[in-house]
């Protein structure tokens, strides 16, 4: 399973690297979302600083929808997913591989996006470690749930619209917890014992486990 996961992750990252979707396209998109939010909400800079964590995670959420959609689309184009089954690749490995590849992309994106938030909204940041840790686990949760649901929705011809409908409610607790954790991190007194961080770890573990267990049934079904 681990070997298959690495194989899949390497292939997906190579395909992504070749088409440069994350760097060239999703990232600017996320920036545009940040700017649009700032405009549409039309509030004073003070408010923007307060809502910066929420906006950041909203932008990440929207980007993640595109990323997981692409990760699964790679296999449905030209029925390549059937190929994987015929080659005897472990479905759990496929799942983990896709989670890893999406995770790498999203995490990179978050780093750049954070720079954007800092520059555009200028919040003060107290606890870097808490921010990093919560981003790490929140992203795992997002990726695991995203890949699972993207595969669930893939049978439908209206996949691109079914996916957000299913996924957004499922990951919104992650979104909320991550937002809260970052708000805590922005405060001066913050620690790694933050309860939101613990919640994020629980989500990450639960979604990863559910995905790894059920992915094979979804692929087979």
């Amino acid at each position, binding site marked *: 399973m681990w070997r*298959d996961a690495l*194989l899949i992750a390497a*292939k997906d990252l*190579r*395909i992504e690297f*070749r*088409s440069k979707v994350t760097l060239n396209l999703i990232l600017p998109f996320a920036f545009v979302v940040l700017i649009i939010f700032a405009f549409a909400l039309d509030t004073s800079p003070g408010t923007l600083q307060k809502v910066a964590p929420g906006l950041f995670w909203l932008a990440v959420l929207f980007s993640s929808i595109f990323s997981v959609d692409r990760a699964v689309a*790679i296999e449905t*184009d*030209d*029925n*390549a997913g*059937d*190929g*994987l*089954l*015929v*080659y*005897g*690749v472990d479905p759990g490995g496929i799942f983990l591989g896709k989670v890893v590849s999406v995770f790498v992309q999203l995490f990179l994106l978050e780093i750049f996006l954070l720079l954007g938030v800092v520059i555009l909204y200028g919040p003060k940041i107290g606890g870097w470690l808490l921010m990093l840790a919560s981003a790490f686990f929140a992203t795992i949760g997002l990726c695991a749930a995203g890949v699972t649901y993207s595969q669930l929705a893939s049978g439908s011809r209206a996949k691109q619209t079914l996916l957000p409908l299913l996924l957004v409610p499922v990951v919104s607790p992650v979104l909320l917890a991550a937002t809260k954790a970052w708000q805590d991190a922005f405060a001066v007194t913050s620690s790694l014992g933050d309860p939101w961080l613990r919640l994020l770890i629980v989500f990450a573990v639960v979604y990863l486990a559910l995905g790894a267990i059920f992915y094979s049934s979804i692929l*087979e079904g």
Partner: protein
Amino acid sequence: MLSGNFPILTGLDFEAGPGEVVLVKGRNGAGKTSFLRAVAGLLRITRGSASVLGVDLVANPADIRHRVGLLGHESFLYEDLTARENVDFILKATRSDMSKAGSSLSSVGLTGRLTDLRVSKMSAGQRKKVALAALLAREPELWLLDEPYAALDSWTREFLDSALNSRVAVGATVILVSHEAHHGSLVPTRVVEIGGGKVINDVSGSDLYQVGPQVTAQKRSGHVA
């Protein structure tokens, strides 16, 4: 076997042993593609029983898959990877001998710039050749070929026939769907006609104008209901 709620295959009773070359014929929509997908363990069987190479297709369809080489109407390739990268990936995924990638690509005529060309830029026939090269390097036990000749030029057709013949000689089984009258050097040992999702005609061995290559003694049964 259902698609949505439509019964695609309604009753097939069919066996094939090693060294056999089964030609599956039938009208468009008869269920040939679905039959091959079922044998490869990709279509679930909802009623009845079925087994291939001794594996029960109803209980554990997954067990047959890695022993099977499937060439379908689609080629299962990644459009953004090159020919070489696709073949390498398939060989890695199936834990096959990686060193054969280059030689099997060149054996189907994909050399030079073509090995490093993305599949999305390739012509219909070139894509099929990439898929074929991967199959040749993998050497599966059971070859399921869905209209393999379509889009291939005559040189490649000949090559495919002779490659299949040499595989069959060492005990591989070939199930082949084709609408074309046969002229190549691959001679079916058996012709099965499918219609309305069931076998309506099964002619084999001495009933054929010519007896196929040696059928080895120890017979593994491939039985699909």
